[in-house]
């Protein structure tokens, strides 16, 4: 205990107070390194866990079944009784139109049953949930109409030429009482539909009782015993795959049971009807004699039955009544025939015909009882669900490079700082040793000195990192996803890991730098350490060059090369700063550039109009209509179908595009080969696919792909070329190929238009949409704007990088320049005595900073190129492809900003240099 004197502790405390600059530089670099690492590293789990919580809070379904036969109560019961099913909920949904601003938008109206335990609980954002008939709640996204406001009354219309909205709902108008979000839709993607443009624009919830459909249209299921913590994991996916089979089987059984009953009923009915018809026909076929005979026969039958019925059963009375009717009919027919009247004949044959029609109808019904088709959807059926996990994993991939880089720099800074400190404290170490303190004890002082800022820096850095980085990164992704908020807990395990790494790294550097001094004898330590000897640098061997250099340049070069470790470190710090800034601006450019490329180069049409498939107009009619329109210079019908592309064990959502006249396609959408830039055509047998999806799935020309369209046969295609494209994924095939693959003509549901210059777009769209054949129109300019605003959000990440880069540059440059100065105090004081003006003294030291900065910037450009490419490749959202090249202004801005930071550090240094006392030059060498 003797050693733990307060003097020892006081010494440490004073050491920290006296060298607060050095202490802070260790603190800040550790905070920056660990904060950056912890922040980026925690973003993925934060995003995933927030999503998992969100799904749980709102009881998101695990499985959704849709069937052409609908769901009835007994089906529900059958599924609910299964083991492992914790919740079943049936619901209605119908896709209908909402006309806004002259355009028919497809709205998916779903039933809301209310209650606490319902699945897919809507999240109320504003207002309240629907309680009464005639009320609805809607969502509010970038795509939804402005009229989606509380208090607005929305009028819906049914699809189809003579569609009646009352076939679906009790009302045609619903009042908005609230704005909601649904856990079913975490991104922009809404379901595909068979009406309108082919995809749902927004969803709407109305009370269940407002649906007039005869049966439930979908069934949602939640399972027991799933790994709810990790709903994006393979484990979850595997478990769902396994558990969904019994559900489907149970439903199938229940349907078959139910179908069997109704089929039997129908068959009985049919038999009865047939009997009736046969009876009438046989009666009509009789001539007068036969008829008379038949009547006599019936007469006696009736007599006998009547006697029997008097004491008989109810059944007897029924057969009596039947026979009596028969008798009456036969007597009527006989009487009228005798009178030469054919009206009864006619009446009877009419009856027979009617009966036949009825029988036919029943037969048709029996025939039309469809084979039961069941479609099952999991959470992963939504592309957004899968890409949410993908996007968060991308950030994690970035976490592998950036933070490692920061930690590396931090370790270097600590190493240099602590080495310098131990060197400075030689005499003191010697004194402690002479006083009898053990090496360990002395070393402990420096360990404590270094580890206090390391530990506090880690806590400070991670505490900020955990909050700041996930928040900023998630906010920039938020435009793509509507999971309302992200939880950013302090992750103790990550913080401890960071601390462990930091403590080990810093501790090791302290021990390493102390080691040499510790092994020396006290007497040796008391003597001054020999200053590093001057050396000739390799450049001096190139005499012609060296001779040309100015005196100060020579000095600077030699100084730089004297402290190689420090020089290298400063270079890395400066280069890192430049690289980060360059990457930040590069990413910004890469992202905004795609708007230019996609909307300026690739998409050449002016507008796209959605065709109304229910208008009854043929493709020729549409073409004729557009031909007539004076404002339309050219047009092309195209069929766009959402489908799933399978290849290499991967699945992605793509659009299958079939132009009516493939030879005209390049006037509307430029298809250039992604490598050679040659124009591509979608000729017969050609399959053109867009670039990004081939990269995602690892496809190349000649590979076979599988296309899956819901409710259609899955087909196989062979890629013949890959086209340049920056947003969304497309596959282009010719109409002939489509017909060959699917055995039917493609349904052209859109038309690309090129519009004459000077056309007033508002008038044009009004005039076009007023026609029954067109559902809506989107102009390319509007599309570009929407797209741009959705990626602009990434600016936050750019700023984050620039600020971190600035901090890095400041800390590294300042710390190293500071060390440089303290180490050369004597030299600087001498220069002052020699009569160097302040500016000259500063310049003498700056030169080194300036040279390092310049070389660092050049190195940084190289690093920036690599880093940018890496980030662009990993940070890309699946649906878009960023421009890969580095923009010229990123070079300039990164250099300017780095230089600015260096200048700022130099200004601070200037004042530090000014303060150096010339008396330092007179002191003996320590």
């Amino acid at each position, binding site marked *: 205990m003797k050693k733990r004197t307060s003097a020892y502790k006081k010494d440490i405390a004073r050491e920290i107070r006296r060298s607060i600059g050095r202490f802070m530089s260790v603190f800040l670099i550790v905070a920056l390194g660990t904060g950056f690492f912890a922040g980026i590293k925690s973003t993925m789990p934060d995003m995933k866990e927030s999503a998992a919580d969100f799904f749980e809070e709102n009881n998101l379904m695990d499985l959704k079944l849709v069937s052409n036969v609908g769901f009835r109560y007994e089906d529900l019961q059958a599924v609910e009784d299964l083991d492992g099913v914790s919740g079943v909920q049936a619901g209605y949904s119908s896709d209908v139109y909402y006309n806004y601003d002259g355009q028919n938008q497809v709205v998916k109206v779903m039933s809301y049953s209310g209650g606490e335990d319902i699945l897919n609980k809507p999240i109320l954002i504003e207002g309240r949930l629907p309680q009464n008939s005639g009320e609805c709640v809607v969502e509010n996204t970038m795509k939804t109409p402005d009229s989606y406001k509380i208090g607005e009354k929305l009028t819906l219309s049914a699809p189809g030429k003579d569609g009646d909205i009352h076939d679906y709902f009790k009302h045609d108008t619903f009042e908005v009482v609230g704005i909601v979000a649904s856990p079913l839709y975490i991104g922009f993607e809404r379901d595909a539909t068979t009406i309108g443009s082919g995809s749902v624009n927004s969803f709407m919830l109305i009370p269940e009782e407002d649906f007039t459909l005869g049966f439930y249209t979908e069934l949602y299921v939640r399972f027991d015993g799933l790994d709810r913590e990790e709903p994006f994991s393979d484990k979850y996916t595997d478990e769902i795959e396994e558990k969904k089979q019994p559900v489907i089987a149970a439903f199938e059984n229940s349907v078959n049971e139910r179908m069997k009953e109704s089929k039997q009923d129908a068959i009985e009915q049919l038999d009865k009807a047939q009997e009736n018809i046969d009876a009438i026909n046989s009666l009509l076929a009789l001539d007068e004699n036969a008829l008379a005979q038949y009547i006599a026969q019936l007469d006696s039958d009736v007599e006998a039955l009547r006697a029997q019925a008097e004491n008989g059963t109810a059944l007897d009375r029924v057969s009596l009544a039947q026979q009596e009717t028969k008798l009456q009919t036969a007597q009527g027919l006989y009487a009228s025939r005798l009178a030469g009247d054919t009206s009864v004949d006619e009446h009877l044959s009419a009856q027979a015909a009617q009966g036949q029609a009825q029988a036919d109808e029943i037969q048709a019904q029996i025939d039309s009882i469809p084979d039961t088709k069941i479609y099952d959807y999991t959470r992963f059926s939504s592309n957004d669900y899968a890409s949410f996990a993908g996007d968060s994993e991308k950030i994690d991939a970035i976490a592998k490079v950036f933070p490692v880089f920061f930690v590396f720099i931090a370790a270097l800074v600590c190493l240099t700082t602590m080495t310098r400190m131990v060197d400075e404290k030689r005499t003191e170490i010697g004194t402690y040793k002479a006083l009898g303190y053990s090496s360990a004890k002395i070393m402990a002082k420096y360990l404590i000195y270094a580890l206090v800022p390391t530990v506090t820096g880690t806590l400070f850095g991670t505490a900020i990192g955990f909050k700041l980085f996930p928040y900023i990164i998630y906010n920039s992704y938020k435009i793509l996803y509507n999971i309302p908020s992200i939880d950013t807990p302090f992750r103790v395990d990550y913080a401890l890991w960071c601390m462990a790494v930091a403590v080990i790294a810093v501790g090791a550097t302290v021990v390493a730098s102390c080691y040499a001094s510790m092994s020396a004898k006290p007497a040796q330590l008391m003597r001054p350490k020999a200053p590093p000897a001057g050396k000739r640098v390799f450049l001096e061997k190139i005499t012609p060059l060296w001779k040309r250099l100015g005196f100060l340049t020579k000095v600077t070069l030699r100084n730089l090369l004297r402290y190689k470790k420090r020089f290298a470190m400063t270079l890395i710090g400066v280069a890192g700063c430049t690289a980060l800034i360059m990457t930040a601006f590069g990413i910004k450019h890469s992202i905004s550039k795609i708007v230019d490329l996609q909307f300026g180069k690739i998409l050449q049409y002016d507008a796209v109009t959605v065709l109304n498939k229910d208008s009854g107009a043929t493709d020729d009619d549409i073409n004729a209509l557009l031909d007539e329109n004076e404002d339309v210079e050219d047009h092309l019908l195209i069929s766009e179908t959402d489908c799933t592309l399978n290849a290499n064990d991967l699945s992605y959502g793509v659009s299958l595009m079939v132009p009516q006249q493939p030879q005209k396609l390049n006037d509307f959408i430029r298809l250039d080969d992604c490598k050679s830039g040659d124009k591509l055509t979608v000729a017969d047998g050609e399959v053109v696919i867009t670039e990004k999806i081939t990269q995602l799935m690892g496809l190349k020309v000649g590979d076979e792909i599988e296309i899956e369209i819901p409710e259609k046969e899955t087909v196989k295609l062979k890629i013949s070329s890959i086209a340049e494209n920056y947003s969304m994924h497309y596959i282009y095939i010719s109409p002939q190929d489509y017909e060959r693959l699917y055995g039917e003509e493609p349904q052209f549901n859109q038309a690309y238009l090129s519009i004459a210059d000077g056309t007033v777009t508002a008038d044009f769209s009004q005039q076009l949409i007023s026609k029954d054949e067109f559902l809506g129109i989107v102009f390319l300019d509007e599309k570009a704007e929407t797209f741009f605003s959705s990626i602009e959000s990434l600016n936050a990440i750019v700023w984050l990088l620039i600020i971190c880069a600035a901090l890095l540059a400041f800390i590294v440059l300042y710390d190293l320049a500071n060390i440089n100065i303290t180490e050369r105090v004597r030299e600087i004081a001498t220069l002052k005595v020699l009569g160097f003006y302040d500016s000259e003294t500063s310049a003498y030291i700056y030169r080194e900073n300036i040279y390092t900065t310049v070389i660092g910037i050049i190195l940084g450009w190289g690093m920036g190129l690599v880093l940018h490419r890496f980030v662009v490749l990993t940070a890309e959202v699946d649906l878009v492809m960023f421009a890969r090249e580095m923009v010229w202004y990123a070079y300039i801005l990164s250099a300017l900003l780095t230089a600015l930071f260096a200048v700022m550090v130099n200004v601070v240094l200037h004042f530090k240099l000014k303060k150096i006392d*010339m008396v330092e*030059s007179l002191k003996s060498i320590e």
Partner: protein
Amino acid sequence: MGEVTITASDGVTFDIEKGEFAVIVGASGAGKTTVLNMLGGMDNCDEGEILVDGKNIAAYNNKQLTAYRRFDIGFVFQFYNLVNNLTALENVELASQISRDSIAADEMLKKVGLEERMNNFPSQLSGGEQQRVSIARALAKKPKLLLCDEPTGALDYNTGKNILKLLQDTCREDGMTVIVITHNLAIAPMADRVIRLKNSKIESVTLNPTPQDVNTIEW
């Protein structure tokens, strides 16, 4: 030119004539460093006058003091204070670069007898050689005053003698005003003028009509 008058705080004044070899002696704490700082233009003084060549440097501001150090003063340090990373030649150039009228660095080094060692770094030179470089550096800018702070303090006896010889020769042959500040009384006989300091006061100022040659002095 080269005339120095110091009025110390206690009112005691001393003068040094141009071309004189003056020694300021005193024990540790006698106020040598203060005199050095004042004379060298490294510090401002509160009161009094320091007239160098008729100009009162005591009234100078920082910038003027820097100019004074740059053009009028040559400084020789006890620990040489050479820039480790510069060769002997370059160390001299460091000074000649910034003065208006300087002697070429190689010439200066030749003069102090380091012709052969011009391209060596300080770490490759002996203490005496380093001090010669230091003197060359101070003289290269043709100062009015050569100010030496314990120039032999870090050197062995013989080397110290050689350095003093060099300083004396510089004074005699080139007419340079040399002021040596030291605690070593033994070298007083070689000076034209000896100023003794004690407790921050001037104890005595003695003129030596027949200064001895360094080689004849023993201590």
